[in-house]
């Protein structure tokens, strides 16, 4: 974890035009270091998926920069981007619909190799078999079958095999375990962490489930209405959240243990519309600590503790957090 593999700088993604423009991502900056997993959490509509897609240039970036391995991606032509994309792979939430229903598993996994004209038929099929074995699918039983014959968890394994066969460096995982049952979810999380070490992968793990994100991530970024609120090492961020929104999210999360009990700091209301976001701090309309300054001045991300940044005028430094007790 020495140099950043990916730097995102002041990323803005706007949907629609002029009067109807919505800034889904409104100035997001972060870095992901080689070999690291960065978790990106937030509620629906906060722009976390758009951020992930914009990194792969699957969404048109309105402004800002995305630098991958020293190269600026936003200024590449589509053709140039295509050649870079094998190093940046994406995994989606619904594994069944992200696999072509009319193609056999072995063809699905081999496709990246065929596109990049790598090896001959024999070496490809060898690599495909090896990749399928690594994700826990028997290539001899499964290779000639179609996606519909597999469960969601198995399809997610096949998606992982497909994304790894091109030997990528960065994986963007967009809610990839959200649709799975807990027992299967645990299998996939474990598989991903094993493969990450084995293939020296760097991960951007986007999810809404705080517990899942904590489990897989080295650092976590919290997003609200298109902006980052807080970014820090997982254990530190969960134990000592600095942003009131992070604290509220954590207190709303439930632990499978009746002795822990419920927190009574639940947030009122719902996120405002990104079409017309609040001035200043975007969280101020729901923030229990908001003051006049929050409406006037946009808080910038600043480092308060080593490696732990927060975008808040009044961070919760001194306030003890329920989860600690």
């Amino acid at each position, binding site marked *: 974890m020495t140099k950043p593999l990916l730097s995102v700088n002041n990323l803005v993604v706007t949907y629609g035009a002029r009067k109807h423009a919505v800034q889904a991502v409104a100035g997001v900056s972060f870095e992901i270091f080689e070999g690291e997993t960065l978790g990106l959490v937030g*509620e*629906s509509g906060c722009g976390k998926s758009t951020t992930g897609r914009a990194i792969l240039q699957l969404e048109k970036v309105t402004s800002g920069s995305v630098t991958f391995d020293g190269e600026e991606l936003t200024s590449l032509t589509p053709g140039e981007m295509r050649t870079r994309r094998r190093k940046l792979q994406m995994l989606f939430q619904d594994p069944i619909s992200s696999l072509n229903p009319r193609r056999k598993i072995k063809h699905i996994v081999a496709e990246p190799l065929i596109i990049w004209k790598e090896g001959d038929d024999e070496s490809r099929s060898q690599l495909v078999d090896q990749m399928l074995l690594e994700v826990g699918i028997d290539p001899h039983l499964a290779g000639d079958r179609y996606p519909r014959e597999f*469960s969601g*968890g198995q399809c997610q394994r096949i998606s992982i095999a497909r994304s790894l066969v091109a030997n990528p460096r960065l994986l963007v995982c967009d809610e990839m375990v959200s649709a799975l*049952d*807990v*027992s*299967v*979810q*645990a*299998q996939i*999380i*474990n598989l991903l*962490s094993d493969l990450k070490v084995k293939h020296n992968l760097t991960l951007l793990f986007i999810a*809404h*489930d*705080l*517990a*899942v994100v*904590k*489990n*897989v*991530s*080295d650092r976590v970024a919290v997003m609200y209405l298109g902006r980052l609120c807080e970014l820090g090492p*997982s*254990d530190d961020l*969960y134990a000592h959240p600095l942003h009131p929104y992070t604290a*509220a*999210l*954590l*207190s*709303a*999360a*439930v*632990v*499978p*243990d*009746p*002795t*822990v*009990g*419920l927190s009574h700091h*639940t*947030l*009122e209301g*719902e996120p405002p519309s990104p079409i017309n976001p609040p001035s200043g701090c975007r969280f101020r309309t729901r923030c229990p600590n908001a003051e006049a300054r929050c409406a006037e001045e946009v808080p910038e991300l600043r480092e308060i503790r080593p490696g732990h940044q927060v975008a808040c005028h009044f961070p919760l430094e001194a306030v003890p957090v329920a*989860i600690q007790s």
Partner: protein
Amino acid sequence: MAIDQSPIVVVDHLSTTFRTPRGPLKAVNDVSLTLERGSSLGIVGESGSGKTVLSRSIIGLLPTQNVTQTGTATINGSEIIGTRHKDLLKIWGSEVAMVFQDPMTALTPTRRVGQQIAESLRINLNLSRKDANLRAIELLRQVGIPSPERRARAYPNQLSGGMRQRVMIAIAIACGPEFLVADEPTTGLDVTVQAQVLDLITDLRAKSNLTMILVTHDLGVVATRTDNVAVMYAGRIVEQAPTAALFARVAMPYTKGLLDSTPRIDAPSHTRLSSIEGRPPDLVNPPEGCAFAPRCTYATDECRTVRPELVRSTLDANHLFACHHPLNGHQAASSLTENQ
């Protein structure tokens, strides 16, 4: 109203079988349970474990074609299984109500939400149109919807997911039911909204002594919001206990497996999750013996051949489990069926 001590819901040896092209599929297999008035029961399990079918069977909300049911289920003494749709209509809304998972598809997209609430008031309580509309607005206020007069005129697509779920709850409680079935009421909602909706349900239950079945896959929700828990696997209840007792002393390896594979926010980052290998059985060809045996690390030949009955634990008479090799010092006291 005199205090009625009898259980509100009694389910006895209930089985629900679907006719499928591949053969009969027993989605609910010999389930018995009782619900005391004002209590809440969480039904947990993974997809396909039968939790939704069980909850719908209990209130008679299953199609009649291609479904065969045996056993009984009574609500306030009236039998549900085998009762005609026409007679069930008298119970739905006024005695039992249901909150569905997806409020977008459960609400009619082309009618204003106020009308949808008023509809059941007019049918069940014979209110006039005007009274029903006023009451609908009052109900929207009760479920915490801001400016209810305006929202009553909104269509479902104009509301957020959390708001729609509040509308569903307003419809459910409109006619003052005693028994509420909430099937994954907060799945798909954000955590902060989930907390709000669950708080609302908790408040409403406390106010009107509502009995509730909460169907969910989320052990965290069950741990914090229910009095009792039933864990389902392959159509059967495999463990059932008061919530605190269940989490303190799990008897069934499947329940332990579920708990151990759930990531927790109070565990350190990168905690290795223990997962349950394999997949739930095919219910058209269920395995002989314990349905969980093929995935269970404790399974012996006995597990693979003899199906364990749901029995009481010697440690706690309220703790039931169906396992030949229970964990945490639990031992089988007596078969439930022998007791009855």
